[in-house]
């Protein structure tokens, strides 16, 4: 049995408290901004101006032209070494991230028309960058040598098949366009779960929960009275995030607001239910925030596929990602931002989120206390 007046009274009270509490307002509106700017400007998975050492054992004009081609690329800032030993020392000292060794028979081989073997030494300490450098350097070498060969032998000599790549949805292949939408999932996990459970736990600590429980209020009213205000707050933050992404960071937004609200609503449904559940069990602000960080923020951060490719994870971990709604929500976000309203895809993802949401809701309602 729900009495609308009681429920609205609870929601109104919650709003008043949030707007009078600077720390809650910061979590709700400032934190999303900080996160989105961090993801937009601070974090980039693209490697640009990687310091690349080039050991030119061959000092012919051909080899030099390759060096210049590398240096001119925006991906590398090339550094010249006369021999392999010096370049390796530079790699050891961390002056360069990778070393490309051009052997002394390089130009001779090129002239002969055989793609000469060049050695690439990569600093593998940062595996991610190492992989990118390796790919870029290989590609640069292949491209340069192809061009060079064409120049030497004419168009008919090589490359009968000309592979032309076209990237759709994110033509610049900018990681920002993919990270910024994904960051919304992390922000909403913070607001939905962390803020909700901290606020409820505070009521336990201050003793207001005891007074409220002693009124004729029902379990469902208590649950909804906590969930709805933070659901709406989260939705506001999501829209704020989308607006900043679109108008400040210039990330394309090809889908509709409706689809965005629909997907975000589903995700928030899980996040807030989880927040209420945590606070019903923990009742202590410190503990509640720890549990929220471990059970919501970190998994959503690491297992959502925003930062780390899910397909690259071990199989067992991949299975676990299915349990977290962020996985589905990130797909929705990236689709809505980059591709547009692909309803068949969105509905499937949102359906999965809804299933998780129903489980959390049922658990949260069952755990909503009527007694101390």
């Amino acid at each position, binding site marked *: 049995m729900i009495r609308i007046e009681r429920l609205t009274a609870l929601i109104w*009270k919650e709003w*008043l408290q949030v707007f009078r509490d600077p720390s809650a307002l910061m979590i709700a509106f400032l934190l999303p901004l900080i996160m989105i700017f961090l993801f937009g400007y601070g974090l980039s998975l693209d490697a640009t101006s990687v310091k690349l050492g080039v050991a030119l054992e061959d000092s012919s004009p051909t080899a030099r032209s390759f060096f210049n081609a590398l240096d001119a690329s925006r991906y590398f800032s090339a550094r010249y070494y006369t021999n392999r030993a010096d370049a390796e020392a530079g790699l050891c000292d961390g002056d360069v991230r990778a070393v490309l060794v051009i052997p002394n028979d390089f130009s001779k081989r090129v002239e002969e028309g055989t793609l000469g073997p060049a050695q690439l030494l990569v600093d593998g300490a940062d595996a991610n960058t190492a992989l990118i450098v390796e790919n870029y350097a290989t590609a640069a070498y292949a491209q340069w040598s192809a061009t060079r060969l064409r120049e030497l032998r004419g168009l008919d000599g090589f490359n009968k098949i000309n592979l032309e790549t076209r990237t759709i949805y994110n033509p610049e292949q900018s990681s920002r366009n993919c990270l910024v939408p994904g960051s919304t999932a992390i922000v909403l996990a913070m607001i939905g779960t962390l803020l909700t459970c901290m606020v409820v736990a505070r009521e336990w600590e201050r003793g207001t929960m005891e*007074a409220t429980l002693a*009124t*004729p209020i029902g379990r469902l009213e208590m649950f909804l009275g906590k969930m709805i205000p933070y659901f709406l707050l989260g939705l506001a933050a999501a829209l704020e995030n989308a607006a900043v992404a679109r108008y400040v960071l210039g990330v394309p937004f090809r889908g509709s607001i409706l689809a965005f609200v629909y997907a975000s609503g589903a995700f928030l449904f899980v996040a807030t239910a989880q927040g209420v559940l945590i606070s019903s069990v923990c009742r202590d602000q410190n503990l509640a925030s720890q549990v929220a960080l471990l059970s919501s923020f970190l998994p959503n951060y690491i297992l959502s596929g925003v930062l780390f490719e899910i397909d690259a994870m071990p199989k067992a971990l991949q299975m676990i990602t299915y349990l977290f709604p962020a996985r589905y929500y990130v797909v929705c976000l990236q689709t809505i931002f980059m591709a547009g309203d692909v309803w068949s895809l969105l509905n499937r993802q949102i359906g999965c989120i809804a299933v998780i949401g129903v489980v959390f809701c049922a658990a949260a309602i069952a755990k909503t206390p009527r007694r101390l």
Partner: protein
Amino acid sequence: MIVFDSVEKSFPKMDRPALDALSITIQPGKITGLVGPDGAGKTTMLRLVAGLITPTSGRVTAFGYDTTRQTRRVREILGYMPQKFGVYEDLTVVENLNLYAKLRNLPRRRRRERFEELLEFTNLARFTKRLARRLSGGMKQKLALACALITTPKILALDEPCVGVDPLSRRELWQMVRSQVDSETIVLWSTSYLDEAELCDETILLNDGNLVFVGAPKELASGLKDRVVRVSGVSAETRRKYVSELLLRPEIIDATIQGSSIRATLNRPFRPQTDPETLFDGYSVAPTAPRFEDGFIERLGGATKRIFGAERRAPLTTRNDENVVVADGLTKKFGDFVAASDISFQIKPGVIFGLLGANGAGKSTTFKMLCGLLKPTAGDGYVGGASLRRSPSSARNRLGYMAQKFSLYSDLTVRQNLNFYGGVYGLAIRERGEAIGRALDEFDLQRYADVKAGTIPLGYKQRLSLAVATLHSPDALFLDEPTSGVDPIARREFWNRVNQYASQGVAVLVTTHFMDEAEYCDRLALILDGRKIAEGTPDDLKSLATSGERPDPTLEDAFIYLIQRGRNEGGR
């Protein structure tokens, strides 16, 4: 009516039930006091009535509704005020009222009228737009009361509404609740102040989860008719010693200091012809009216009979005629807020000095400045001649501090705690060993010596705190609300120990909100809104409030009078 039918309530990790086989019927039309020290079971009873917890066995019914199975029905007729403020601090007065009106289904058309009534009656009409956070402790409690009363409940359950509230607000709260009692209302009022019990129509006295007494408060004391006497004419120097001597006599079951006289309870009626000579060494003795507390002590078997306090080992570093503790214009500001303003007093050796005031009045701030825990904005404090500003660590070394909450290491054993603090106070190994052995004997801590401090009973924790504070034989002892939460027997024992230290010349500074404890002090300072508004002996303060209509005021009367005078002078 409310019926407790052989109710037992146990909590996990507690060695004994919070309430043990309680059967009791509470009738409407009166204020029923649930009286007892912390942990006696008062809050447990109230929460059982509100259905906030369920009994382990037995049954609680309120007006025929089972509080476990028909919780919502019970809550519809209940007004409940928890011990921590039940009001939302971020909401204004009127927003709080509105919230509770809606939560309790007060029909919209009746709200306006009811709000006006309650605001008028709680004197909060001027503050409707003020955030509850900015109300004083007394006003917050009145607001919480108004919220609980919003639907004129049939059961009004109030959990220690007067804790930390100044005596004036306390008196007003009583009047408010009194005016709400009609023939159909049950008022449950829990309190740990035994003097407050006397204001109730009916009392349920609990100790350690057991029922000690049920009935009108007068009945508890009436058994002691002609057995309570007042001994006067004992000089201030010998008074404390004399109390402990009296306690050792078999005929005497209780003795305490009350201002300049001594209050004693006998195990038989007082014999005016012979007793003054044979039992009271020729002092003038007159029978006096027994109090609720006297009855409680008697029911619990009388005060502990033994001599407390061994000989002091280290001589005092302060000379006899010097002030041990000096507060010289201590002022503390937090931003715009003046927590303490120009507070000065001096404490001579052997004097027990009481600092009184409501929560938030500034007594803890003053206290913390004198302990060197808080740096004064202006003014200075001295302990044993050392300035807290210039040489705080040597000042701190001359004082023993006992914090309000148990602040020792719960995970260390009693002995490890003593050892650690002995080290902190700079006692050499051999000296420390002796001091610890002495403390364990003197405070009866021997049997808990190797038990973790967090798990020993509350009374023993308090003893351990005092043992730690006195380990280095300090010149001054600072006690911050030392007896809150312990039963009256343990309180007697505690004060007897403190008296022992005082008679060895230690200066004692104590804060308390128990009025009867204020009577144990030699001098008192009353703090209101950060200012000291009066200082003197308990009898001095009482005489200030003496008037034609009030020839023999109690200390509480005196405080109310002084608070009103202070407020008027404060320009309000």
